[in-house]
Each structure stands twice: as C-alpha cells, then as structure tokens.
C-alpha cells in the first residue's frame, strides 16, 4: 500500500516538509513548475500556497466551480500575476519572458474568439500572432485535427458552442505548442466530438507534449488521464494517480460490490475478516465496506470456498475519479 503522504501529496503540499521527489504533486522532468503560489483578489483568496509541477503527458486539474483552477491556469500562462510564489514554464517566467508563448497553446474557458471571423481566418490570425508562417497547410491541418474543415469558411458567430470550442483548440494547436493548457476544453462538444478531441489530446501527449486540462466534469478527465491535481478552496487537496489517491484515503472505507450466488452465506463469512467494516446485502449480491482493499481481495477466494458460494464479480465501486473527488469534498467539510 502506498503511504498517504507519498500517494496523495495532501500532507506534503503547502507544508514544505516532504521531499519533493516523493510527492506526487511533482514530476521528474517538469516543463511547468509552480512553487508556493498564492493569489488573492482583495480579501478573497483564490489560490493558496500551491506547489506542483507538470511534465509531458496529460494532467487533469480538478475542482468544483470557483476552486481556483482557472486562476492557477492563468498564472501558469502568465495572464495573471501571482500574489506570492513563482511559476516557471520551460525554465522561464511567463510574466517577464514573452518568448515562452511561442511554445504555449491556450484554450481559455471563455469565448475568446472573434465571431465575425471564419474559423479559417481565426486560426490563421492565431498562427500569425504566434509568429508562425500562417500557410494554408498549417491552418488546414489544425482545422482538420478538430474536424472543422467542412465548416472552416463559416463565421464563428454562426457556430454552436462545441464548434467554437473546437475552433479555439485549432487556434491553440496551429503553432505546434509544447505545452497545451485546456480550460474546460470539451464544453458544449457532442459525444462524438468529445471522443475526437480526447483522442487528439492523447495523441499530442504521446508525442511528448505537456497537456494540462482543467475541468469539473470528472468523467471527461478520467477518460483523458490518470494523473490529477485536485484543488479545493484554492488549496491543493490531492495529487497523483487516481487509484493511489483513493488508496491514500485509508480512513475512508473502500466499497466493493461482490456478485455471488448466495449473498447471505458470504456476508456471514466475510464478517470474520478484520478489515471488513460492514456488509450490505443487495438484490444482486453484496456491497462490502473495507479498510483494506488488498486484504479483502486476497482473503475473499478462501472465504468464498469455505462458505461454498460462487463469486462471479468483484468490483470496487468507489475507485472512480468521481468517488475519489466526492471523498475529498467530504474531507474538506
């Protein structure tokens, strides 16, 4: 089992007491480093003493609305000055070293696109602003990647929300950024287009790009990545792989669904396992709460054999990102 501090980073962050190499909030080869960053607007603290880093691959930044995700992303891109702490992108300060933007692509949450331009004109303009040669090929390639070529010559004002979102993604991709920051990138996209965009992000990540995705739609993040940074009330609540974070919440019993032919017999037998906290008999099997998932897993076959029952399914039901996040919210409360 992974130690809580090493797995979740809950203890480490903001305290500075744990070696950064052990803290899952940090990566081995970072392209983006956030060090003890805080941001306040008047008396409102939006981000409080957050330290983490991002490297090649996709990292999800999670949090409910108003948690501080967008503020953190805006500080990483240098759109917002930190009140305290520092941000480094490719070893440079984005607030002072403008050249770093040639290597960044940003898809902001707001509707940052000119409605009176066509997608083709908008992507071309984005290329020119990024100091790239806005050739037909590169513009069409970016539009093609987000499936917008058929509508490339329509004005963005006539687009649906999902299409506008894809136009912003194309504009962010046209300069071949090494770092891509996506703030709620799938907003408004239909299921097919979500699939297309998620595949594209995976493709870019596989090609060594650093991708930071901010979202409050947990299922989307889960489809994109296994590494997350969770922010609650502006503070780093957890970091690392989803399963490891869940494991680190040892004080919250794990819930497991077991499909079995004779539930009551198995329920009785399971109560002899010390790690089992509670057993609920359901229509189609059992729901077991346990403090130690691995112990339950290792002892279940023998217990089932002893009780002469047939187990057909063993499935943790709260290891999903949504469950993990719900637990994090409970911890906060």
């Amino acid at each position, binding site marked *: 089992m992974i130690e809580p501090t090493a797995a979740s980073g809950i203890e480490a962050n903001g305290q500075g007491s744990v070696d950064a190499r052990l803290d899952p909030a940090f990566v081995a080869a970072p392209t983006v480093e956030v060090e003890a960053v805080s941001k306040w607007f008047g008396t409102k603290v939006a981000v409080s003493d957050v330290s983490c880093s991002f490297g090649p691959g996709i990292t999800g930044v999670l949090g409910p609305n108003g948690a501080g995700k967008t503020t953190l992303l805006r500080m990483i891109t240098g759109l917002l000055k930190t009140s305290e702490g520092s941000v480094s992108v490719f070893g440079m300060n984005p607030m002072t070293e403008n050249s770093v933007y*040639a290597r960044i692509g940003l898809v902001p949450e707001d509707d940052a696109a000119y409605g*009176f331009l066509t997608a083709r004109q908008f992507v071309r303009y*984005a290329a020119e602003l990024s100091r790239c*040669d806005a050739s037909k090929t590169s513009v069409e390639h970016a539009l093609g990647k987000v499936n917008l070529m058929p509508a490339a010559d329509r004005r963005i004002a006539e687009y649906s929300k999902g299409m506008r979102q894809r136009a912003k993604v194309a504009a962010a991709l046209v300069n071949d950024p090494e770092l891509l920051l996506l703030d709620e990138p799938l907003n408004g996209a239909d299921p097919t287009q979500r699939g297309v965009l998620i595949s594209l992000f995976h493709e870019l990540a596989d090609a060594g790009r650093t991708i930071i995705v901010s979202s409050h739609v947990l299922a989307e993040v889960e489809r994109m990545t296994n590494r997350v940074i969770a922010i609650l009330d502006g503070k780093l609540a957890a970091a690392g792989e989803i399963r490891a974070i869940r494991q680190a919440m040892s004080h919250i019993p794990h819930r497991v669904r077991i499909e079995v032919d004779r539930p009551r017999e198995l329920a009785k037998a399971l109560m002899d396992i010390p790690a089992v906290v509670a057993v609920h008999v359901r229509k189609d099997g059992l729901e077991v709460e346990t403090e130690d998932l691995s112990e339950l897993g290792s002892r279940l076959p023998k217990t089932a054999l002893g009780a002469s029952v047939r187990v057909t399914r063993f499935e943790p039901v709260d290891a999903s990102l949504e469950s993990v996040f719900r637990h994090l919210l409970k911890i906060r409360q």
Partner: protein
Amino acid sequence: MSSEGTVYDLGYTPYEGPRLGRSGAIRAIFVDSIRRSLGLRRKPWAKVLPWALVGAAIAPAAFFVTFTFMVSGFSVEDAGAFGSPDQFFDYIGTLEMLFVALITPTLLVPDRQHGVLSIYASRPVYSSDYLLARAGAVLLLATLFMLIPHAVLFFGISALNVGGLWAGLKFNADQIPEILITTVAYVVGYGAPAFLVSLYAKRVAIGTGVYVAVMFMTGALADAIPLASGLLAFKVLAPMSLFFHPMTVRDWLFDLEGSGMPLARVDLPQWVAAISIVVVAVVSAGLALKRYRSEI
C-alpha cells in the same frame, strides 16, 4: 482499379515552418485592425458607416473640382476659395472626428468586452505591440481619410490650371508641408482623445458617444468664453478645447488670424494648441500602456 488499399497516417504533424519575428505578430494585428475598422470581411452593415464617411469626405473635393471645371474649364489661374486647402479642412475636420469616433472604440473595446484579450496574452505579443498596431491602424486610416480628399482636390485643381497639370502642381506645391502637418494635427488631436476614451469604455457605442460628447462639450465650453474675459479660469479652460486645437494649429501654419478660436480669445498663442495635442497624446499613450500591461 487497384485492389490494394492504403491507410493514411492522420497522426499529429508538428508545425515545422519558419518562426517569424515580433514584427510578424504586430503586422497581423495591424492588418486585422485595418480590416475591422473598414468592415472588411464582415457583414455589409459593418461597412456602411466607415465607407459612408469616406465617401462623405471625398465627395466635396470631387464636387469642388467638378464645379471649378464647369465654371472655368482648363483655364484656372487661381481656384480661389474652392481651391484653398486650409478652408477644406473645415469641411472634412468634423467628418474626421466622426470617423475616428467610429473606428477607435471598435478596435479596442470589443477585445476587452468579450474577453478576447487572452488571444493576445497567450501568444508572444507584448502589450506595447498590441497598442502600437491598433494605434498605428487608427493613425494610418485617419491620415488617409484626410489626405485622400486633399489629394483629389490638389490634383484636380492643378489639372485645371491654365498651364496644365505640371504647372498647376508647381503652383500649389508650396502648400504641401502645411497640408501634411495640419493633417497630423487633426489625426493626433482627434485620435488621441478617442484612444483615451476607448481605453475605459465598456461598450463601443458608449465609447463613441462619450468621445463625441467630450469633444463637442470641451469645444462648446471654450467657445462660450466671453471675449472680454481676462479671468484666469478661462485661460485654463481654453487649452482644453480639444475640438478646436487642430483648427488652431491649421490657422497657425497657414498664417490665419483665427480670432474666433478659444485660445485667441484669451490671448494665448496658437502654438499652445500644438502643445495641448502633444500632451493629450503622451498622456493617452502612457495610460494605454499602464492599462494593458496587466492584460496582455
């Protein structure tokens, strides 16, 4: 028909073209500004006002030339009032102000209003690049707005000269420096306050309205100064008559008395108008940089 099939690689291909310099980004914003100001690549209604004003500025020049031709044919020795560029500034000066009132807020306000500044902020573009390109577009368009009608008038009247076009051009050439400098005074004198208002306006229409109101009100206020007044307060007000400053500069350059101008009424020299224009321009530039430093 081939029986072989091919599956093409649709994988991500990185951009491998040249990386252009800072000037490329500035040029892109500048071109965008020109297009947006004139409603190019936009729906027809976006083109109506700017082009109507351009037409309204050129039409009097064309009319004067046509009228002079009808009266004198190709035997003009001195075109008189119709051929006087200093008077022509009176015709197109107010149109220039309206043109600037129309295009300047259009370039600055929507980017803030619709949160589009992040397009620039997330790219290798400095706030000064953005402002330089936007201001440059306003200055160029406002300059052309004044110079094209003047050119129509200048070449038209010269072509009607009794000695032919070349003789006409030589005859009128001594006015060119005054025309150019007065044009600069109009462009900066009207453009800088428009830029200043647009830095803070929350809607294009509000920006346009506030600017026009400020220009006319400062002009009207200074115009209301009693002729005989020697009060210090009026001496302070007169240099704020933004609407009249370009005209005062014109009077100064063309050696006109300009007794009706607010500065003349309080016995201030005409060059004070030029100083006022420069001060407003410098203040506008400073505030613009301050305003956008945190945005881009």
